[in-house]
Each structure stands twice: as structure tokens, then as C-alpha cells.
């Protein structure tokens, strides 16, 4: 297995985030290299989702900066983040339940559609060509995620594991440079987890996307990620390869507790 891991693409520097008196994140720094699978782990309430929300521009950290492909930002703006090529999936699925799988994934192409509302409404000339091109890309994703049988099924009717796949599909539709996955395997059974792992590795491999994922299941994380950041009570307590993290005293005590 030879995977080309490139230079640092996303660099998080000394981020601190507070909600009133509650310190959600304290002085967090880590970086993500191109083409790697980077995991953020930690117990409940450790600040994993908050970290993702900072990168994603949903939260504005009080301190610190984020550097993405050489550009430094004090805070990110959601739209700007999307335009720069960072996509995400959600822990509790923000899909359009009444829309079909195709339409849901098509929404991920929004930023790639240049023609105006008027042309699109009448579906004339460039708008139609554009739609066909985007639909073709969406079909690639459907094929990739093996959800051909559900193309026209309303998302609300699909089982949870498949909805997760659609969520991933919509993020992929953006052709992101960096893909943020918020607990992609939560609530899945063993088989669904294995499928999801395969898709994540395949995305990393075929699309060359850099992946940052949050995950609870340690087994899964250790198997698929290149490097792992460990958070606990908003602080970074470990950073390194799965092997290093596994042997880190502080990490073990955060997860298993220690005797005093």
C-alpha cells in the first residue's frame, strides 16, 4: 500500500472557543495533510463536533486561526468554506426527507451551477446542458455508493444506514478537497459500519479527498485513519498515528478512567 500523503492542507492554530463561561475548546492545534484520513476522537462532550463546526464556519472561535491551503483565517464563513472546497456530513442527517435520493445529491452540486434562476426555471440552453453535466456527476456518485436501486426513492423512506450514504453522497457531489465527516458510523450495525469504512477508504483512494472524521468507535478509527487527534474536555491530549495514540497514557485514562 503506497498512498501519497502530501503537504499540510489545513492547519488549525491555537483555537479556543467559549460559550459564555463554558470552555468548549482550549488552545487546540493540529494539522491535516493532503490525501490523509485524519480522525478526531474523544469521549462525549470532548468538543469534537465544536472543532468541526469551527473549521466549517458554523462557530467563530474567540482565539486562534485556521490556515487552509496557505490562506489564513481568523474565522471561517460557511459559504466561503464550501466555495473553497470543504464539505461535510452531519451527525444527525440534515437531508431533505421528502426529496428523492437524486435530488438530495443534486443539491450538493449547487455551487457548480452557474446559470441563473430564470434559465433554470425554463430549463433552456445553457441551463439544460449544465443540468445534464451535473446529473452525470451525480450518477457517478450513485454508482460509487451503490445506491442505484434507490435513485427515485424519497430519502425519508430509506433505512438509516442508506440515509447516511446519501448524506455522504451529497457531500461528495461538491467535489471537495477536504471532507469533514461527523460520526459517519453512529447508530449503524456491524455490517453497515464495514460498508461505510470501505466507502470512506474508497473515497480517499478514488477521489483523492482528504478526510477529517469524528468517530466514537475506536476499532474503526484505528483501522482506517492515518493520524488521530484525541480531545478530552476541550483539550488536546494526544496526536499521532493510531499506534502512538493507543499507547498514550493520557488517552487510556480518558477512555478507561484511572485509579486514584
Amino acid at each position, binding site marked *: *500500500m503506497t498512498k501519497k500523503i502530501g503537504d499540510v492542507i489545513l492547519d488549525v492554530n491555537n483555537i479556543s472557543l467559549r460559550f459564555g463561561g463554558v470552555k468548549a475548546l482550549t488552545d487546540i492545534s493540529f494539522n491535516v495533510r493532503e490525501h490523509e484520513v485524519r480522525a478526531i476522537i474523544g469521549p462525549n462532550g470532548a468538543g469534537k463536533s465544536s472543532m468541526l463546526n469551527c473549521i466549517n464556519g458554523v462557530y467563530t472561535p474567540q482565539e486562534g486561526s485556521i490556515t487552509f491551503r496557505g490562506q489564513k483565517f481568523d474565522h471561517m464563513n460557511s459559504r466561503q468554506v464550501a466555495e473553497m472546497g470543504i464539505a461535510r456530513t452531519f451527525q444527525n442527517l440534515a437531508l431533505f426527507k421528502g426529496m428523492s435520493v437524486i435530488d438530495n445529491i443534486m443539491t450538493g452540486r449547487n455551487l457548480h451551477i452557474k446559470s441563473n434562476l430564470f434559465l433554470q426555471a425554463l430549463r433552456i440552453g445553457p441551463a439544460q446542458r449544465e443540468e445534464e453535466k451535473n446529473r452525470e456527476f451525480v*450518477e457517478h456518485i450513485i*454508482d460509487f455508493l451503490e445506491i442505484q436501486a434507490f435513485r427515485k426513492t424519497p430519502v425519508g423512506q430509506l433505512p438509516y444506514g442508506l440515509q447516511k450514504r446519501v448524506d455522504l453522497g451529497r457531500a461528495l457531489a461538491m467535489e471537495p478537497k477536504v471532507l469533514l465527516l461527523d460520526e459517519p458510523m453512529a447508530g449503524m450495525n456491524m455490517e453497515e459500519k464495514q460498508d461505510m469504512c470501505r466507502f470512506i477508504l474508497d473515497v480517499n483512494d478514488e477521489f483523492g479527498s482528504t478526510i477529517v472524521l469524528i468517530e466514537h468507535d475506536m476499532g474503526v478509527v484505528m483501522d482506517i485513519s492515518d493520524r488521530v487527534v484525541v480531545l478530552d474536555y476541550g483539550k488536546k491530549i494526544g496526536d499521532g498515528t493510531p499506534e502512538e495514540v493507543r499507547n498514550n497514557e493520557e488517552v487510556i485514562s480518558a477512555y478507561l478512567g484511572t485509579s486514584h
Partner: protein
Amino acid sequence: MQTTFPRLMLKHAAERPTAPALREKIYGIWQTISWSDLAQLVQSVACGLHQAGLQRGEHLIVVGANRPRLYATMLAAQSLGAIPVPLYQDAAAAECVFPITNAEVRFCVVEDQEQVDKMLEVREQCPQLTHIIYDNPRGLRKYTEDGLGSLEELIAAGGVFAQQHPQFFKEEVEKSAYTDVAAMFFTSGTTGNPKGVVHTHGSLIDRANAGAEFDKLTSAEDVLAYMPPAWIGQNIFSYAQWLVCGYVVNCPESSATVTIDLKEIGPTYYFAPPRVFEGMLTSVMIRMEDAGSFKRKLFHYFMGVAKKVGPALMDGQSVGFMDRLVYGLGNLMVFGPLRNNLGFSRVRVAYTAGEAIGPDLFTFFRSIGVNIKQLYGSTETAVFVCLQPDNQARADTVGVPCKGVEIKVADNGEILVKSPGLLKGYYKNQQATDEVLTADGWYHTSDAGFIDSHGHLKIIDRVKDVGRIQGGANDGAMFAPKYVENKLKFFPFIKEVVAYGDQREKVCVMLNIDFDAVGNWAERRNLSYAGYTDLAQKSEVYQLIKDCVEKVNADLAEDALLAGSQVSRFLVLHKELDADDGELTRTNKVRRGFIADKYKPLVDGLYEGKTEQYIETVVKFEDGRTGSVSATLKISDAKTFTPVKAAA
């Protein structure tokens, strides 16, 4: 027709170059491959395989679902005089070892990563398997194993070779004769290793032709190829007959999309084992239960009409004007839309085979206007032995011998077949060949049956299972356990049946109720129960099952030959027969001998005339632990009928 498959393909490519040969759904759109495209593709693959070193007479394994490029690979191998051997795509690696070793296979062409992994595993035991070629490259980018290559590259290289040697392909095709071996199919033996059934171009083409003539198939047919290509049925329907007739074979997008693809294509010629039809009927019924009350009433009313009139219309019998009118209305409002929904709007001929089909299931499809028929054949006979003519389809026969076939019933009841489609032999297994193919040219099917008064063949059971009643009123009568068991299993309430009667004075059965169906039935009657064992012993359930058994007896009584097989006594078992307990085979066939030993007190109880019997059995749970189940089982008598003697 004294020709070969590659020549048939070239003929279509020359006569109708732009006509569609194959369709494949890619990215949600049906893509058409014309006959000339196909010829081009086959030429490239053949040249590529030749360059890779594939020799005339050598075997080549093909593993995967129905994919146009795998079909092209089979044609390419045949063009070079090599022999394609399709294997089941869901077989485990260990199961592939024997065929690959047996046929000394060096080349395999597979569909995707899953199959590549399997072949790499097989290669540890079969080092001669040097070339592994895959169609779909997904997930294989990082594989660096020796001898692994993509079909894409092979086609590109073959294309270059073909340009440099434009005559090579045609010359190779000309070298093969119709008497040459065309393909080999491995049949899963119930005991021992599988056997490779060798067929020539001649035998397969002759049978494909006979079937096509029988049903007047033309190049305008549309077929959906969705069963494993390693199964001779699929191979005949979507390969041999495809090349003989020149119709269009459609490859579904994936196994999960078959029902959608079926609806989109609307095949005109269709083939499925009974369980597929059963699945369709179940899904229709479930959806109707969920429909609004007006729709449901409409459906049930018109289904009643269909049941009365449909089969007669299908068989071309005269039907009263009013009935015809109401049926026509039903067709407009219910049957037509239903056929459309199932993908049967255009179907002209639909076949079912492989197992016995329940009369209700069979009638359902015929009554809504689907021309479903049965056929009889096996891998060894290249499928077509008997077929049902359009107006004579019945649930309990398998049709009349088709063109070129001679049938004889041996003294022991075994059906013997003489046909141009018989196998050449089992590969490297002269002993097995001699057992089934005798010097006088008859193939021994090991099925027992007879020809009924209409000239239709009726299959009863496997020869080795057919027994005789000894003593009692029916002394010497024929006893066909599977025939009796199947008849009972056609009732939705009965899941499994074991029948005993060989060397005994009467027939007794032990059965399992279908927990879902009977449970549902009980709930609707406010009948409370604690679990399977409890439900099985309810006297109401016994009465329900008794009615089923007596209906079967009444039916058997009309059959002069099998009237002696009527069931005198039965009991409902306290546990479900299970493969984990060794009571069923992995393919869910009952193991009569084993069950008789295990439940000896019950069998004795049945024959000693007791009304109940205590039994204790060891069961194995799914996690491997064992426990025991005990119960006192009721034993019930069933009414038998005096045989209705067939009019002399």
C-alpha cells in the same frame, strides 16, 4: 444448424450491424451495444487473450454477473477454440478450487474486486492460475499481484493486434466446427465433487433452436438477464438463444435494481424459478393490504373474475360474453396496470422450472394474463426436453417432448431421454458418464415420472426416493414422498413436510406449520399462543392442517397411480426443522432418513395408532449452544378417499 456461436455472432453483425445485441444500464441510462460493436469487442478480446497465451482447447473461467463484456469474453474464448467455464459468482473460494484444478485452468476473467480477491485466494491452492483479468477496476488500483490485469488493457492491446493481423480473428473462428466443445457447466453434486458437464456448439445450438421454434421466438424479443450465467438456464436463455435468434439481452444495473429494470425493459420472453414468482405475488398482496378500501375491494372483486375466466381465456377456450366483458373491464382497471407494475406488460412467453410450482401461484399469473408455462430439462440435456404448448399449461405437468426429443419411461419409473442436446460427457469422469449415458444412447435423468393421457410428462420424484406401500389396503401401490410433500407445501400454512410410507402399510407425515402464516391466521381469530410449540399443538391448528391434508388426499385419489400415497395420519412437529440440526440440507431439502432416526418415537407413534406421543429433542441454538425441547404431540387421523379409477 451446423454452426458455432462465434459464427452466429458474425452472421448477425453482417446482416444487421446496427441492430441492438445487448443493453446495459450505466449511470441510470440504458446503453446499447449493436451487433457490429459486439463483433468488434469480441475480436479485440479474442486477440488480447491470444496474445496473453490462451490456447485452443484450453479452459477459461468466467465469474461474474451478467455483464456484456463477460459475454463478449465467452464468445472470444469460443472464437479461439478455447472453452469458457462459467462459475457461480456467489460460490465461496473453496468451491472454486475443484473446477479450476479439475480443468487445469490458467486463465480467469472476473467481474470485480470481490471476485479478484476470491481468485487470489484460490491461487494459493491452484498455482497454475496465472492470469486473472478483471472487468471493473474499482478498488483494484493498489493491487500489485502477478498476472493481474484489467480487461480494458487486454482489449486495447487486442485491438492493436487485430489491426496488425486483420485476418487472424476470422481464421480462428473458421477453425472451429460445431462438433467442438463449446462450454462446460459444473453441476453441484449432492455428494462428492461437482461434475463438469461438457456441451458442444452443436448440442447447445440445436436445443436453443428447438426452444425458439417451439415458441416462435424472433429477433424482436427482449430478455432481462439476471440469473447467474453459470446456471445453464440463464446460459440458454441469454446466450445460446440470444445468438440463435439475435434478440436483445438486457443486463440489469445491479442485483438490487432487477425489479426496477424489469419494469423499464418490459421483457417479451422471461424465465424465473418459482420462488421469484412467489416473491412477486407476495409483494403484490402486501401492497394491496396497505391500499385504500375501495382499491382493495376492486382488486379482490376482479381477481375473483380473473380466477374464473382468466385461465380459460389463456387456454383459448370459449368464454361467455358477459364474463369476457367483465374480464375486459378488469383488464383495463386492474390486470393491465398490475402487469405493467410487475414488468409483464409485453411478456409473450414466461417460463418457470427447477422446482414444482404451486397451482395457486401458477393460476394467479395465468389469470391476470401472463402466459406462464413450465418446462423440463437439466444441465445434462441443455435444458429443453419438454415444454408446455401455449394453450396447455398446467401446474402439475411439465409439457410435451419438444422437437428431436424421444422419451421413454423405464421399468423402475425412471425417465430416459434421447435428444441431440445431450451432454458429451462429464469432464474427466468416464465412470459418472457411463452411469447416466448408456451405450444405447439414452440419458438417465434419475427422475421418476410418467406420460399422462394428454401426452404431457409428469414428474413425480427422484427415482431413488420412490417407494412401495407394503401390506394393508394399498399393498404394492407407488409411494412418491416428494410429490406428497410438495402438494402439502403448496398450502401457505405448511412450511415443511416429511412423508413416510416406503415398505409400510400406509403413508404418514410429520410437518411444520408456517409460523408467520398460521400465527397471522390465529391472531385474526383471537387465538392466543405462547410460541411455535404452543401454536403447533392447538386443536384449531390441527383442524386447519387436517383440512389441508384431506384436500391433498382428495386430489391424490383422482390419480390412479398415486392414490395409494394418500396420507392416513399426521402430526405437527414441536420444533421447526433446521439445517443447523442436520434435519435439512443447506439448500433446505428434508433429510428423511435422518429425521426418521431422530424422531423414531414419533414415527412409531404414527404407525402404532397412538393419539399422542411424548418426545424430547436436543436443539442447537444459533450461537452454538445446545438445549432440549420436549413436548407431548397430538397425532391426528385424516380421511382418505377411495381412488377414482381412470376411465379405461
